């Protein structure tokens, strides 16, 4: 009897352990709902100054995107050969450049809404895809997929896939091509991105 109880307890522990490894789909979707609603209501459609919008966006961006994680992936194999200083600098300018370029696109998103289309599991542990569609004036809706990572119940966005185009992969390919041609390697990339985020 004792053996059976121990066995049952072990199964129970194991199954809760497994359940924890799997991302809670509903929670992931709620997280993206929160992010998009906040972005639309408090930034895109709100009547505040451009400076205030930019500041709010920077806060949202820093809070909900895992830039350390993304930046590391984006630099790819060059991450390993970079010095700690280069890594920090890269993550910083990558963050600045993204905030800067996305801030300019607010107007394109005016009046747009996100329609939630469920989730898809990912092969990467602790990650899930939240599927959304943005209805367009003309033609088919744009498919926007959010790749979400869960760490101890905390959610972060690690990639955004627009019409099958992953922003992380695109940046990774782009930076690999740049570094290969640049005489200054990663430093050249950092300098170029810094110029862009001014």
């Amino acid at each position, binding site marked *: 009897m004792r053996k059976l109880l121990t066995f049952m307890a072990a199964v129970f522990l194991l199954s809760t352990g497994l359940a924890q490894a799997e991302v809670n789909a509903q929670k992931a979707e709620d997280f993206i709902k929160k992010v998009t609603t906040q972005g639309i209501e408090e930034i895109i459609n709100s009547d505040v100054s451009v400076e205030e919008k930019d500041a709010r966006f920077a806060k949202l961006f820093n809070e909900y995107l895992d830039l350390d994680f993304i930046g590391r992936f984006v630099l790819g194999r060059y991450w390993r050969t970079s010095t700690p200083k280069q890594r920090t600098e890269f993550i910083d300018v990558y963050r600045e450049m993204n905030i800067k370029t996305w801030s300019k696109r607010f107007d394109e998103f005016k009046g747009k809404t996100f329609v939630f289309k469920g989730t898809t599991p990912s092969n990467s542990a602790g990650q899930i895809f939240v599927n959304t569609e943005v209805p367009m004036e003309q033609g088919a809706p744009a498919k926007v997929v959010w790749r979400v990572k869960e760490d101890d119940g905390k959610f972060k966005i690690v990639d955004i896939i627009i019409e099958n185009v992953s922003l992380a992969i695109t940046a990774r390919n*782009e930076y690999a091509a740049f570094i290969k041609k640049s005489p200054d390697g990663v430093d050249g990339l950092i300098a170029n991105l810094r110029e862009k985020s001014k």
Partner: protein
Amino acid sequence: MKKISLLVFLIFSLAACATNPDGSKLSADDEESGVEYYNRAMFNFNYQFNKKVMKPVAEGYKSVTNQFFRDRVSAFFNNLEEPAYFVNNLFQGEIKNSGVSVGRFLINTTLGLAGTFDVAAGWGLEKKKNSFDQTMAKYCVPDGPFFILPIIGPATPRYVIGWSADAYASPLFWALIDVEDDGVDAAVVGATGLKYINIYAENMGLLESLEEGSVDFYATMKSAFLQNRQKFTSLCAENNADEDALSYDFDFGYDDAFDEEME
């Protein structure tokens, strides 16, 4: 017609001498071969062409038209693609969808005032977009290597063949060959020009913001174009059975084997 065949022939002989069998993969494997030299040169030419010709024209067009007008123009040309959707839905055994395409074309061409309004969608007949490119993907025709076409831009052989085949299904093409009238031919050429100016005008902002954040615009466009094309890969049953149907579900962890595979 001869001219089109010649153009297609040129494109393929060009693509053939620069072929890399794995060119459609998401890697940068044309970097070492001569094809990248050509691609980058042609990309720069197109870039200058867009900047010096297309952009001023599109800006002029935008200044004399409003969003409402441009939406009608888009809808008009989208409606002319319905016959191609019909044929390709049929090719892929999507009988119901091909019926929808016929219905949409008939309704929108008449009640939708020559296609300028999508009234059919309001009746629940949503567009069932399809293409010969997609048909070929479904029958597992490989995409082939990436290359840059003059003026048109990023392409692959399957993309070009699909695009040319669909052009035959367009009423614009029928008008061009069936009506023996130079006036009609000129109108078709003019309409095609309008179509591309309208597309360019509507996407100019997006292109510019993409360029703004990019350190290597050619690499960005190439990567985005090829990833976008992967959406058809899972249509082929063999690929689907293979493994993950989601092309963007790459292993987002940090093991070295993955890095080598990607580069």
